[in-house]
C-alpha cells in the first residue's frame, strides 16, 4: 500500500541540483519506489533520479508530495520523513552573491580621464586581472563526426554505455586522488548526474527512435537538458546547464577519443578567458598560472564555474554586454572586478592606472604577508602565538602557509562524522600523523572526539535528548564507550611520537573527569611501550575550558592538566545561558559582556599562578576588533580560522601590551557590554598608528597628472591599512578639490578630506619627480603633495589640532624648504614632530 508524505518546499532557491542530489542519496537506499509530485504543476519525478527531480521545477513554497510504495516502504517512509523534516531545508548553502548594484558606474578620476572602453558587468569574484583576451567556445559537435543514420543502433548504445561506465570510474579515481576539496564535491555532483537513469534514457531514445549516432545522442542529451534547465525560472537550475555540458564533452571524448575532443583553450601568456559560458571542466583544464580573469556573458554567482573561480581567486565578471561578440581575440584588456567592468582598448593612461592598481593590491598583500611570516607579538615585544583551528589534514597546509605558528585546535570529530562505522585505529593514526608531519615541528593541539549533543553518530546510538547541549556529549560519553575511546587515544598516543602533539579533552567540568581521562591515556601509553611502538612519553594533556565550573577550579585542575585552552564559544553560551543560534537571545551572546571579561581574566590569572600554558580557541580569537582585550588577558596563544591569521598578526604588531591590559581592566569595570564596545572603539581611535611615519613619506614619485598623484597618496594609505575603501576616499578628496584647488602656491598642494572610509587619521607626503599641473593659486605646477585624511567620526580632537598646526607651518618658507628637500624620511619625520609639537 502506497504511503504519502506531503510538505511545502522550504528552499528559497527551489529544488536545484544540490537539494535534489541530497534527496536522491536518501531515496536510492530503498527498494521501494519513491515518486515526487509537484502539486503546483502536476509534474511527477522519480526521486532516485536527480535530473528527474530537478526537472519537476519545484519552487519555494510549492506544495509537494512524496509517494513511497512497495518493498521496504515502511522503513523508507520513516527515513524520508525525518529527512524532509530536518535535513532538507538545510541542504542548500549557496554562497552569498556579490552582484553589483545597477546604478551608474562612478569611475575614479584617473581612469575616467584615460578614455578606455568600459563594459559593465556583475563582479562575482573580486580582484583585478590583466591579460590578452582568449575565447572559449561552447558545446558543438565537431563537424567530422556524423550524428545521424546509425547503421547499428545496438553498437551505438554499447559505445555510450561503455563510455558512461568509464566516465564513472574516472570520477571515482579522480575524487580518490584529490581528497576532500571543492573539486571533489563538484565531481561528485557530476558523477550523480552521469549515473542518472534519465540521462541514459534520453540518449537511448535518440538512438532507438531517431537512429542517431552516439555523437548525435550526446548532442541531443546536451540540448534536451540544457533546454530543460535553461527554461527554468530558477536561476540555480539554469546554471546547471554547464554541468550537463561538461559531462557531454567528457562523454564525447570517451566515445571518440581525440576525434571527439572539442576545441580546447590553451593559455600561453597572461590571459582573460571570455565566452558565452565556461564549464567547470573547461575551467579546471586552464593553466591557472596564466589565467588572470574570466568574462562570461551567462553564468550566475552559484554556477560551479564561478564557485571554482572564487576558490582560486580568479577575478570574474558575468553578464557583460557585448560578450563574446564584441570582443577581439588577442587584444589586451583588464577585468576590473573591483569596479565591475571589462576595460578594453587600453591606452597609456589606462595602462598606468592599472599598473598603479596592481601595485596597490600587491602592496597590501605583501604587507600582510610580511606580518604573517613573523612570530605573533605586540609592538613592545610581548609574544602571543597565533595558531589555526582546523578539522582536516588538507586545511593544515593552508594554515601554515598563512602564517599559523601551530594548530591551536584540531577537531578530531570530523573523522567520525558522516560514516556508518567508527574509523579504525590505523585510519585515525594516519590522519594524526599526517597533520603532525605538515606541522613540521610546530605544536598541534588535538582535541579528543567531541560528539553527542548536536553531532550524533549512528554507530554509537546515543539516546535522543531534549536538551543535548546540557546533556550527554564529549568527555561525558567516553566511560560508556571506553573501547571506542581507548582506540582513539591509542591512535593519538602512537602519533605523538611523530611531532609536537598536545592532547586536549573537551567539556571538562570536574576534576574526576580529568583524572579518569589521564589514567586512560597512561594505560594506552603503557600498552604502546609494551608493544614497542614509539610515542612521546612527555605528551602534554590539557583541559578545554568551556564549562563555567572548570573555570573556577583551575588550581585543582592544574594538578591533572598540563595546559588549558579556553573554548570561548561554548563557555560564553553556558556562562550567559544563551544559545547563539537562537535569534531571540543571541544578543546576550556577546564577548564584551563585562562579566564574561572578568571571568576570562580570573581563568587566565589562575592558570598563570599554577604556571600553566593557556590559549583561547573560540571565534573570539579571530576577531581583530577584540585583539586589544585578548592581548590584555595575557594569553599564551590565540587560535583562529586560517583566513583571519594575517590580519591578526598585523593587528597585534600595532598594539602595546601595557595599554591593552589597562584597557581590559577598564572594560571589566564597565556596567554594560555597550560601554565596553564604546571603550574599545575609543581605544582603537587613540591607539591606532601615529598620524604619520617614514612609511608615509615618499620621494621621487612618478606621477604624470594631479589625478595620478592623488591616487598614489590614497593608495599608500590603503597599503598601510589606514583606510579600507580607497575609491571612496579619493572621491571625497576630489569633492573638496571641486570647491577650489588645494594648490596654495610655491609648488605645494594640500588635498584633504573627511571620510568614513578613513580608519585612522593620516598625513601623507609625496615629493614628485616631475611637478604636475594642479590649478594652483599661483598657476605654478605642484611638486609636493601633502594629503590630510581624516576620519569622519572625529570632532575637535588632538589630531585636528595637529592638522591645523601643519596648515599654519606650511605658510613658512623654511618649513616648505625642508619638506621639499629633506631626502631622509626619518629625519623629515623628526623635523615635523618638532614643528608640530608632537
Amino acid at each position, binding site marked *: 500500500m502506497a504511503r504519502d508524505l506531503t510538505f511545502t518546499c522550504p528552499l528559497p532557491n527551489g529544488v536545484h541540483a544540490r537539494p535534489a542530489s541530497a534527496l536522491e542519496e536518501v531515496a536510492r537506499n530503498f527498494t521501494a519506489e519513491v515518486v515526487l509530485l509537484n502539486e503546483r504543476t502536476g509534474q511527477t519525478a522519480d526521486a532516485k533520479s536527480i535530473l528527474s527531480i530537478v526537472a519537476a521545477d519545484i519552487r519555494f513554497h510549492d506544495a509537494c508530495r512524496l509517494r513511497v510504495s512497495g518493498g521496504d516502504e515502511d522503513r523508507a517512509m520513516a527515513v524520508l520523513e525525518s529527512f524532509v523534516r530536518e535535513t532538507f531545508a538545510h541542504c542548500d548553502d549557496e554562497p552569498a552573491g556579490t552582484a553589483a548594484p545597477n546604478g551608474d558606474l562612478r569611475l575614479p578620476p584617473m581612469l575616467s580621464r584615460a578614455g578606455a572602453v568600459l563594459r559593465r558587468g556583475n563582479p562575482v569574484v573580486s580582484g583585478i586581472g590583466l591579460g590578452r583576451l582568449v575565447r572559449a567556445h561552447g558545446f558543438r559537435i565537431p563537424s567530422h563526426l556524423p550524428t545521424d543514420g546509425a547503421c547499428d543502433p545496438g553498437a551505438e548504445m554499447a559505445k555510450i554505455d561503455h563510455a558512461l561506465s568509464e566516465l564513472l570510474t574516472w570520477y571515482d579515481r579522480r575524487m580518490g586522488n584529490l581528497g576532500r576539496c571543492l573539486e571533489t564535491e563538484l565531481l561528485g555532483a557530476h558523477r550523480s548526474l552521469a549515473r542518472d537513469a534519465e540521462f541514459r534514457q534520453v540518449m537511448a531514445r535518440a538512438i532507438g527512435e531517431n537512429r542517431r549516432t552516439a555523437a548525435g545522442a550526446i548532442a541531443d542529451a546536451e540540448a534536451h537538458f540544457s533546454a530543460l534547465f535553461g527554461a527554468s525560472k530558477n536561476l540555480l537550475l539554469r546554471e546547471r546547464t554547464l554541468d550537463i555540458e561538461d559531462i557531454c564533452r567528457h562523454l564525447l571524448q570517451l566515445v571518440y577519443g581525440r576525434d571527439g575532443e572539442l576545441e580546447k583553450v590553451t593559455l600561453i601568456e597572461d590571459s582573460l578567458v571570455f565566452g558565452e559560458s565556461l564549464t567547470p571542466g573547461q575551467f579546471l583544464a586552464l593553466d591557472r598560472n596564466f589565467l588572470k580573469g574570466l568574462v562570461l556573458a551567462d553564468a550566475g554567482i552559484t554556477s560551479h564555474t564561478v564557485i571554482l573561480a572564487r576558490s582560486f581567486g580568479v577575478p570574474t565578471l558575468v553578464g557583460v554586454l557585448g560578450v563574446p561578440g564584441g570582443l577581439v581575440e588577442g587584444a589586451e584588456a583588464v577585468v576590473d572586478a573591483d569596479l565591475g567592468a571589462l576595460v578594453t582598448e587600453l591606452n597609456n593612461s589606462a595602462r598606468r592606472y592599472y599598473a598603479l592598481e596592481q601595485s596597490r593590491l600587491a602592496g597590501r598583500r605583501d604587507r600582510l604577508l610580511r606580518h604573517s611570516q613573523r612570530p605573533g607579538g605586540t609592538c613592545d615585544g610581548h609574544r602571543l602565538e597565533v595558531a589555526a583551528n582546523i578539522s582536516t589534514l588538507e586545511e593544515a597546509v593552508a594554515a601554515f602557509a598563512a602564517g599559523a605558528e601551530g594548530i591551536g585546535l584540531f577537531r578530531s570529530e570530523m573523522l567520525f562524522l558522516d560514516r556508518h562505522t567508527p574509523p579504525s585505529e590505523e585510519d585515525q593514526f594516519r590522519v594524526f600523523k599526517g597533520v603532525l608531519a605538515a606541522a613540521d615541528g610546530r605544536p598541534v593541539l588535538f582535541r579528543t572526539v567531541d560528539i553527542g549533543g548536536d553531532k550524533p553518530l549512528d554507530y554509537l546510538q546515543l539516546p535522543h535528548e531534549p536538551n543535548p547541549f546540557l546533556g550527554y556529549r564529549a568527555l561525558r560519553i567516553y566511560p560508556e564507550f571506553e573501547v571506542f575511546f581507548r582506540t582513539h587515544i591509542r591512535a593519538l598516543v602512537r602519533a605523538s611520537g611523530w611531532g609536537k602533539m598536545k592532547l586536549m579533552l573537551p567539556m571538562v567540568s570536574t576534576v574526576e573527569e580529568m583524572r579518569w581521562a589521564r589514567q586512560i591515556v597512561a594505560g594506552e601509553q603503557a600498552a604502546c611501550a609494551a608493544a614497542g611502538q614509539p610515542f612521546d612519553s612527555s605528551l602534554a594533556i590539557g583541559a578545554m575550558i568551556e564549562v563555567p565550573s572548570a573555570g573556577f577550579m583551575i588550581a585543582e585542575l592544574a594538578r591533572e592538566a598540563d595546559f588549558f585552552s579556553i573554548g570561548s564559544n561554548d563557555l560564553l553560551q553556558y556562562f550567559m545561558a544563551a544559545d547563539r543560534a537562537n535569534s531571540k537571545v543571541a544578543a546576550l551572546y556577546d564577548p564584551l559582556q563585562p562579566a564574561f571579561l572578568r571571568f576570562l581574566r580570573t581563568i587566565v590569572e589562575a592558570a598563570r599562578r599554577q604556571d600553566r600554558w593557556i590559549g583561547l580557541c573560540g571565534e573570539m580569537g579571530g576577531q581583530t576588533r577584540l585583539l586589544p582585550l585578548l592581548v590584555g588577558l595575557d594569553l599564551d596563544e590565540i587560535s583562529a580560522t586560517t583566513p583571519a591569521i594575517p590580519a591578526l598578526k598585523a593587528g597585534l604588531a600595532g598594539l602595546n601590551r601595557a595599554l591593552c591590559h589597562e584597557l581590559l581592566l577598564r572594560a571589566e569595570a564597565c556596567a554594560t557590554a555597550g560601554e565596553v564596545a564604546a571603550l574599545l572603539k575609543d581605544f582603537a581611535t587613540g591607539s591606532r598608528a601615529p598620524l604619520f611615519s617614514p612609511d608615509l613619506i615618499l620621494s621621487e614619485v612618478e606621477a604624470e597628472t594631479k589625478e595620478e598623484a592623488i591616487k598614489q597618496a590614497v593608495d599608500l594609505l590603503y597599503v598601510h591599512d589606514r583606510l579600507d575603501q580607497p575609491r571612496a576616499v579619493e572621491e571625497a578628496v576630489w569633492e*573638496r578639490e571641486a570647491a577650489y584647488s588645494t594648490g596654495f602656491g610655491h609648488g605645494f598642494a594640500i588635498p584633504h578630506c573627511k571620510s568614513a572610509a578613513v580608519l585612522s587619521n593620516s598625513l601623507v607626503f609625496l615629493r614628485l619627480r616631475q611637478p604636475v599641473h594642479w590649478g594652483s593659486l599661483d598657476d605654478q605646477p605642484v611638486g609636493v603633495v601633502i594629503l590630510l585624511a581624516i576620519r569622519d567620526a572625529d570632532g575637535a580632537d588632538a589630531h585636528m589640532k595637529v592638522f591645523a598646526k601643519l596648515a599654519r*607651518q606650511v*605658510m613658512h618658507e623654511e618649513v616648505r624648504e625642508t619638506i621639499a628637500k629633506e631626502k631622509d624620511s626619518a629625519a623629515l619625520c623628526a623635523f615635523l614632530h618638532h614643528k608640530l609639537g608632537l
Partner: protein
Amino acid sequence: MKIVAVTACPTGIAHTYMAAEQLEKTARKLGHSIKVETQGAMGIENKLSQEDIEAASVAIMAVDIAVEEGERFDNIRKIQVPVQEALKNPEAIFARI
C-alpha cells in the same frame, strides 16, 4: 594699527588656518597688531571679544562661508575677501586698510 580678522573655509581643515597664519605673518611684517579668530572644524578658536573688536580700526573677513556670530562686526569697517586671497596676496588686503 590694531586689526581683527576672521578666517573660515568650507571644510575648516586647512585653509582656515593657512589664511590665519598668513594674515598674522603679514601684519607682523607691516608693523600692525592683529588678532585672528579661526572658525574651522574645531569650532571658534581665539575668539574675538567685543572689546577686541571695539579697539580695532578694521576687520578683515577672509571667509568662504557665513561667519558665526557675525553681528559682533556690525559696527566696524570690514574688508571682505575670499580665503584664497589671504593666501595669494595678503599684502594687497592690507593695502586696502
